[in-house]
């Protein structure tokens, strides 16, 4: 399967906006998983508070990133949209839904805001991000490589 890259549809001085935004949800959701693990081991409530903020901020930035991702996708002609772009989109949509559900779980009070459901969701979210992130990098860096030729 020839997986071509995707030309950015929205860019500032040549830098794709989507690429500037995606690190935020990746870092936030990974951070939430780490603070969840710490909370599950210590029961220090502040770590579950950290998780709540990381999930909320990750969701906000993730929604912005998704918006610019969609702009990138639909500014390209249908024939230029590679299959992995769709997989990347659907996977990251699932990430945002998981993180949203996880935010509500984290809004519970005390131990069950994290253990077991919140922590489980945080781990699944990060595992899914590894896959969608790889696909996303494959889209953007192949694009870079193609321009460099």
């Amino acid at each position: 399967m020839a997986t071509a890259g995707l030309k950015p549809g929205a860019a500032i001085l040549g830098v794709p906006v989507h690429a500037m935004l995606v690190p935020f949800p990746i870092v936030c959701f990974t951070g939430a998983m780490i603070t969840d693990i710490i909370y599950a081991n210590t029961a220090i409530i502040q770590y579950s508070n950290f998780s709540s903020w990381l999930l909320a901020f990750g969701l906000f930035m993730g929604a912005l990133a998704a918006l610019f991702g969609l702009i990138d996708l639909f500014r390209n002609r249908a024939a230029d949209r590679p299959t992995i772009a769709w997989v990347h989109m659907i996977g990251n949509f699932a990430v945002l839904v998981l993180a949203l559900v996880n935010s509500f779980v984290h809004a519970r009070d005390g131990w069950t805001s994290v253990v077991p459901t919140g922590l489980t969701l945080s781990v699944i979210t990060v595992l899914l991000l590894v896959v969608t992130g790889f696909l996303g990098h494959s889209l953007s860096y192949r694009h870079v490589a193609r321009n460099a030729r």
Partner: protein
Amino acid sequence: MTRSSLWLAAIAPVALADCHGTPPAPDQQQGANPALPNAEQYLFPPMKITTPIGWKNGETPTVPSGFTITAFAADLNGPRNILPLSNGDVLAVEAGDPNAEPVTRPKDIIYGLVIGKAHSPVKPGNRVVLLRDVDGDGQSDQRTILIDKLNSPFGIALVGNALYVAETDKIMRYAFTPGQTSIAGPGTVVTLLPAGEINHHWTKSLTASPDGSKLYVGIGSNSNIAERGIDAELDRAQIWEVDPATGAHRPYATGLRNPNGLTFEPITRKLWTVVNERDEIGQNLVPDYMTSVTPGAFYGWPWSYYGNHVDIRVMPRQANMVAKAIPPDFALGPHVAALGLAFNSGSAFPAHYAGGAFIGEHGSWNRDVLNGYQIAFVPFAGGKPAGKIEPFVTGFLIKENTRGRPVGVAFDRAGALLIADDVGNVVWRVTANAQPSSAAGAASPASTSTRP
């Protein structure tokens, strides 16, 4: 396990939350042995927030036949508690939330916005107002600000010529003799009370022992279920016994999540309180209650409720504390938010009501079907509950709108029941109509309602 089945496993407890059998009937959750369904966890905790609309001209709450309700005073600024005096004057404590609770997670912002909608738009006075009924018609016609600029006051008690006011952060003493309409001087601090920057349950209920030698003050928890961390709960969720002369204090009973309505039962001379129990583990958990307070007893919060029912949200668990926890005397029903309690020691009401408890139920917010929003009555015999809960004053609610919300209750010197209504901004007065047999004087028709 595949990813999707893992996901399902994680979500399953959530999805199942709404399919837990039939809820217990309301009267099964009242009295000495309430039904306690299994705890549930939610993605979206049930919530129904009422909208304050106030009382229009001439509207009043509803009382049983044989009683009359009138507005003793209207257009107050958030009256939450009342203290009737021996000369007929009534002190009304106007107060509001100190409203300084810090935001520690996104939920705090959302809850603050949502729950705030149920409060009266009138700015609370944070003061003590003296209401005087000069012509004796059951409606106050003179009002003076007795003590101003208080820090979210709530509890108030008079012992001899000492007036004690429990602000959210301290107990104050003022020299005051019934009949006075002003107070000289700034008052004296008796003792500081746990407040601090979170100060979640801020109402400090106050009463004095029958002999006046001790004060008792209720200190609510700093959270729903210790989700601010257990360190925030130092000295909270307990009743203190305070020596009014020195300010020395000790925990009198602990594990009481949000104790209010502190008052002594006149026959047994035991301290009673109404307590708001924990939220977000079910529409029908945990029933709020009233109880006589056993000195030195631990009532479970936060680790357990109704004795040894463990709350799994509190970590680390404390098996030794759960083992110590004793159940309260009498459940009032889930989320009714009981805040006021008064015993009818007079004889102005019919015999059925003699010695019984009248409970101000501010009303639920975290339940699909609204609960509370009434004055409940529980008959007593020999100083103990002896019957089921009866709605006594109702009509605060119209659909999901609140004309009023009852808080503090008290009996005045004539044996009438006074009710502080912090949404209607009214102090209501309930009197028993003259009995046909003793028809001397006031011949008021049955169940009339009047309002200035």
